[in-house]
C-alpha cells in the first residue's frame, strides 16, 4: 500500500470513529440524516476524488476510494458514500452537473428500466427505479436511462428531507429501508419533464452495467469492512464475557468458531481486494468476472461469519442496544444489494462454463 493511501485511510478512519457513534446510527435509522458526518467526509474530498482535477476532483485511484469504503463499512457509516462516488463518476464523465451534497445513482436493480423520450429541447423520463439508496435524502439523483440512441445519464435535482411518501425530484416516491434501516426508496417517473442540460449520452463504458458492477463491488468492500468490525466485536466480547467462571474465549468451542469466522473475514478481504484491483484492468469482461467472484465470496463469508458472531454473543447480540447488529444487519442487507451472491455466483459459473473446462485454469491464473 502506498504511503499516501495509508495516511488517507488513517485519517478517514479517525473521522469515522469520531462521527459514527451509536447515537448517530440510531438517529440515521430514525430518518435523520447525519449532516455533520457528511460534511466532515465531504471536506476530505473523498466523495468526488475520482473526478479529474478540472472537475473539482483529485484524479484519485478507484482503489484508494474503495479502500475508504472498507473503512466506512467498518464503522457502519450511514451515508451514501459509495453512491455519491458512482453518481459523480457517471455524471461527470457524461458532462453533467454534480453536487457537493450526497448523491445517489440508479437503477440498482436488474429488472428496472427507465426510458427517455425527446420533448422539444428537453426530455421526458418514465419508468421505475426501485430501492434507490437514500433517494429521498440525496441532493442529486443520477439515473441511467434508455434514450432514442442508446444509454443516457440524467442528473435530477433532489429534494433532501422528503422521506415521507410523496414527491421527490419530481417523481412519486415510496420510502423503504433495508434490514439495517438504511433508506431504500422507490421512484416512479411518469413522463417527468427534464431539461436538456440535465441529460447526456453516457461516456463509453461508464454505463448501467458498469454502475451495477461497481455498485456490487462497493457493497462487497463495505461488507469486508463490516466483517472486520463484527470479528473485532466478537473477539473483544469473548474476552470479556464470563461464563462458568472464565472468559468464554477460553472455551475451545468458542475458539474454534471464532477461528472459522476469522478465516471467512480474511477471505472476504482478499476477495474484495481482487475486485478492487480488477477496476484498473480496462477489461470490462474480466472486471465483471473478478467483481462477481468478490461479491460471491464476500456474500458467502457474510452468511457464515454473521451466524458465528451472533452465536458467540448470545442474547446480547440480538439487542438493538448492543452494536453488533450495526454490522450484521448491514451484512444481511448488503449481500443482496446490487445483486445477491446467488446472482453473481451464477455469473461466475456461466463465465467459466462458457469458456469450457480446459480454459478454467488459464482463466483463474490470467494476469
Amino acid at each position, binding site marked *: 500500500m502506498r504511503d499516501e493511501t495509508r495516511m488517507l485511510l488513517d485519517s478517514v478512519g479517525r473521522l469515522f470513529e469520531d462521527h459514527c457513534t451509536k447515537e448517530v446510527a440510531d438517529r440515521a435509522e430514525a430518518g435523520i440524516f447525519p449532516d455533520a458526518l457528511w460534511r466532515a467526509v465531504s471536506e476530505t474530498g473523498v466523495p468526488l476524488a475520482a473526478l479529474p482535477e478540472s472537475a473539482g476532483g483529485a484524479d484519485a485511484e478507484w482503489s484508494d476510494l474503495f479502500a475508504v469504503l472498507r473503512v466506512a463499512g467498518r464503522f457502519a457509516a450511514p451515508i451514501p458514500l459509495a453512491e455519491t462516488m458512482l453518481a459523480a463518476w457517471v455524471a461527470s464523465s457524461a458532462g453533467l452537473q454534480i453536487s457537493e451534497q450526497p448523491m445517489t445513482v440508479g437503477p440498482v436493480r436488474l429488472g428496472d428500466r427507465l426510458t427517455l423520450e425527446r420533448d422539444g429541447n428537453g426530455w421526458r423520463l418514465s419508468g421505475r427505479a426501485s430501492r434507490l439508496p437514500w433517494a429521498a435524502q440525496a441532493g442529486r439523483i443520477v439515473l441511467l436511462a434508455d434514450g432514442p440512441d442508446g444509454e443516457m445519464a440524467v442528473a435530477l435535482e433532489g429534494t433532501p428531507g422528503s422521506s415521507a411518501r410523496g414527491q421527490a425530484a419530481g417523481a412519486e416516491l415510496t420510502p423503504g429501508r433495508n434490514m439495517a434501516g438504511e433508506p431504500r426508496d422507490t421512484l416512479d417517473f411518469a413522463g417527468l419533464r427534464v431539461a436538456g442540460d440535465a441529460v447526456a449520452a453516457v461516456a463509453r463504458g461508464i454505463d448501467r452495467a458498469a454502475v451495477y458492477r461497481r455498485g456490487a463491488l462497493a457493497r462487497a468492500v463495505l461488507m469486508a469492512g463490516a466483517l472486520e468490525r463484527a470479528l473485532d466485536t466478537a473477539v473483544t466480547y469473548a474476552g470479556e464475557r464470563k461464563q462458568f467462571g472464565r472468559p468464554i474465549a477460553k472455551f475451545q468451542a468458542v475458539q474454534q468458531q471464532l477461528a472459522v469466522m476469522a478465516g471467512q473475514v480474511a477471505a472476504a478481504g482478499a476477495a474484495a481486494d481482487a475486485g478492487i484491483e480488477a477496476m484498473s484492468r480496462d477489461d470490462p469482461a474480466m472486471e465483471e468476472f473478478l467483481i462477481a467472484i468478490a461479491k460471491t465470496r464476500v456474500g458467502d463469508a457474510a452468511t457464515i461469519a*454473521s451466524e458465528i458472531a451472533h452465536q458467540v454473543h448470545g442474547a446480547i447480540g*440480538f*439487542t438493538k442496544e448492543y452494536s453488533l447488529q450495526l454490522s450484521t444487519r448491514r451484512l*444481511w442487507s448488503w449481500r443482496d444489494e446490487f445483486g445477491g451472491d446467488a446472482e453473481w455466483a451464477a455469473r461466475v459459473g456461466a463465465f467459466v462454463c462458457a469458456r469450457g473446462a480446459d480454459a478454467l485454469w488459464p482463466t483463474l491464473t490470467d494476469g
Partner: protein
Amino acid sequence: MTFQAFHFDPVELPPVARELRKEVRAFLDENRASLGTRRDYDQAFSRKMAERGWIGMTWPKQYGGHERTAFERYVLIEELLAAGAPVGFHWTADRQSGPNILRFGTEEQKQFFPPRIARGDLSFCIGMSEPDSGSDLAGTRTRAVKVDGGFRVNGSKLWTSNAHRADYMILFCKMAEAGQEEVDRHAGATQFLVDLKNSPGIEIRPVINLLGEHHFNQIFLTDLFVPDNRLFGEVGNGWRQVSSELAFERSGPDRFLVLFKLLVEMVRMAGPNPDRATAAALGRLVSQLATLRRMSLSIAGMLQEGLQPLTEAAVTKDLGTRYEQDLPVIARSLFPAEPELEAVDTYVSMLARSTMNAPRLSIQGGTREILRGIIARGLGLR
C-alpha cells in the same frame, strides 16, 4: 457394543389424536383472522382455546386440566405452530410453569395456579437469566433473604420474555443471609412465584431486539417481598426444579416450526414443476423436517411414559435449530430477493424476518455449545 446411543422409538399417533387434529384445524379455520400476524400475545385467543380445554390439557382434572395424552397435546401445538396461531399469552404457563407447579407446588398453589392458567386467566414468564448468568445458572446473583412472613428479594433479571405482559414470574434466585450482597456460586438455588402486577419493588424495562421489537425485558427487583406461600418448591431445590423443565422446553415442535411458513412460501415460489436442483433442495429440507417431527413425536411418547429424555431432547433441539437456521440461507440461494421487512410480497418480508430472527434460535432453549455438551455427556465423553 450397544450401538444406539439415543432412543427414538417409533410411535404411532392414537386415533383420538387424529380426531383432535381435525377439530383443531376446524377451530383454526374459524379463527383465520388471528393467524400469521405479528400479534402473538392474545388473551382472547387463549380464552377461546381454554374454552375447548386446550390449555393444560394433560393436567389432572382436579387442578383444572383435562387428562388428555401427550400425543393429543403434541398434535394441538404442532397445528397451532404450523398455522402461526397467537399462543403467546398461555405458551409458557401451559408448557412449563403449570406442569412445574403441579410437580413441585404446594397444594394451595396447585389449587390456585393451574386452574387459572387452564382458563386462560393467568400468563407466566420465566425469570432465570441475569446479566452475568446466561448458560451458567450458577452465576445467578439475585438473592432472597428470609424475613418475617416471607422473603425479601434483591437483584435483577435479563432477557425475561413477556415480563411486561405476564401476570406471574417464576423467579430463580439464591438464598442469602441478611445484609449479604454477593452470593457464591454454590449457594442454594430457590424459586418463587412472583405476582408481577401487584408487587411493589419491581421495575420492568424493555430490551428492544434487533428487529426493533419488544419481547425481552430487564427486571430490577428492589426489596421485593414474596410471602411464604409463594415460595415455590423447596429452598435449595431450584436447580432440580429447573432442569426438569428442559426436556419439555427443548423437544417440542416449536424447535423446528418457528420458520415453517418460510418453507411453505418456498414451495409456493417453486411452483408445481420446479427444476431438479430446486426440487432436490426443497426435498432435503422436507426430509429434515419430517425426520425432526418424528423424533419430536417419539420424545412426546417418552414424556407420556413419564420418562425424562433430556439427551434426546437436546439432539432434537440442536438438529431443529440447524435446520431452521439453514432455511433462510437456502431460501436466498434458491429464490434470490432483496429481503425487506415491510415488503408487500409475503416471501420477501418473510425472508427478512427469518434472516433476522435466525440468530435467536440457537440461543433460546440452550445455546448450541451447551446442547452439544449435553449430547457429548450422553455419549459418555464427559
